């Protein structure tokens, strides 16, 4: 086990981005100090560590801050070589980077978009989300392995993994249905396997607390979108 001396993680209890980093640190057996930030009352320290976005997660290693969850994952994998998250082969690595970006931009973001929007926009967003899931299902089937990373959890699994425990909440808050298990048997199986891992399932936020948070957050996002439109 690594010494706690050098590693700090600034997070927020419900942040799927901070969760990605927690998973990576746990899978590699890296000890770290966790600092909980309040999204609605950010500490001056966080704003100093991440002056561009002022967001979590921020990983601080040997006093140096790194922001953006996917970039933090790449950093962790480069520094701590045990339980590698990315493959060694350059082509396989390129595929992992590609699908991680897809998981974040097309899969996770489209679900949130569908949750927060209404009317025609909601219908469009749900359609996009389902299309993204179809691509994801196809890729999983093509690989034919338990996880994107192979037989063990890897980079793409961690980036996509937030949908495993947050999707049901987003669906309920947004009154949408995206993950039909008969239509997406591969993704459904992948989610089961992913959540079955003790380090993945450990310490996830409570479902009712997530529901309350996203109900409020969904209205906030919808309001922000509307006010931008009037400017």
């Amino acid at each position, binding site marked *: 086990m690594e010494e706690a001396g050098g590693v700090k993680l600034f997070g927020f209890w419900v942040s799927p981005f901070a969760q990605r980093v927690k998973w990576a640190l746990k899978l590699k057996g890296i000890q770290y100090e966790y600092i909980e930030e309040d999204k609605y009352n950010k500490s001056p320290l966080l704003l100093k560590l991440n002056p561009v976005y002022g967001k979590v997660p921020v990983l601080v290693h040997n006093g140096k801050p790194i*922001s*953006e969850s996917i970039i933090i994952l*790449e950093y962790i994998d*480069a520094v701590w070589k045990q339980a590698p998250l990315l493959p060694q082969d*350059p082509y396989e*690595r*390129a595929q992992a*980077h590609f699908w991680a970006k897809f998981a974040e931009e097309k899969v996770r973001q489209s679900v949130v978009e569908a949750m927060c929007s209404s009317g025609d926009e909601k219908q469009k967003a749900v359609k996009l989300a389902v299309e993204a899931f179809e*691509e994801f299902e196809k890729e999983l089937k093509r690989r034919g392995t338990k996880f994107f990373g192979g037989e063990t959890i890897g980079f793409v699994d961690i980036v996509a993994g937030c949908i495993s425990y947050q999707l049901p909440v987003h669906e309920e808050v947004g009154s949408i249905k995206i993950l039909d298990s008969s239509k997406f048997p591969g993704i459904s199986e992948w989610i089961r396997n992913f959540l079955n891992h003790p380090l993945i399932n450990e310490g996830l936020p409570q479902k009712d607390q997530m529901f309350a948070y996203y109900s409020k957050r969904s209205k906030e996002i919808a309001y922000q979108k509307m006010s931008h439109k009037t400017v």
Partner: protein
Amino acid sequence: MPTNDVKLLGAPASQYVNRVQFALNLKSIDYEFIPQNMREKSELLLKSNPVHKNIPVLLHGDKPICDSLVIVQYIDEFWFDGPSILPSDPYDRAIARFWAAYIDDKWIPFFKELTTAKDEESKTALVEKILEGLKFFEDVFVKASKGKCFFGGETIGFLDIVLGCYLGWLKAWGIQLDVNFLDEAKTPALVGWAESFSSDKAIHGIIPETEELFRILQIILARAADAASK
């Protein structure tokens, strides 16, 4: 005739395609450039990038690699015996990747928003955001270059490629809006960098002439205005 079976599907005026060309040149890799018509996508493009149907796509043998940042990193990792593009230190790599993501996710999209900006107020606000970004890049450059010519130090690196690809478009937009984006008084280090970058032999001749980009920009703006009126 290219000896290592590398093909690039792209269009000469695409800054994302230009990034890949820079990287291939830096590593002295021969390749075949296959121009694509994005308004009538080829079978080859649709087969090589079925998910996004977009350029650039690098075809290495029969393997397609998509997304300009992914391709540049692939080139750096596969042809590891050529000059390094990404920094070797993991922390410096993280910083380079952070700013690359900012450029692609925040900064370049400001220009895209400009194409559909309806009034002077929103255009001014976007120009302010672009200039703010350039001030960030000035600071990043001063820290990363350590007194040398490039973000990568003595040689062209990842961030040089990611930002440098947009220099032509930045000039074209500057003419369009009558704004001097790279101002010697405000971002002197970046002005110097732009000169060093553009004249480097791996870079020179890839980005189309500003007149050509300005001409294309007029077409883009006309199309956007047309779409908005429908």
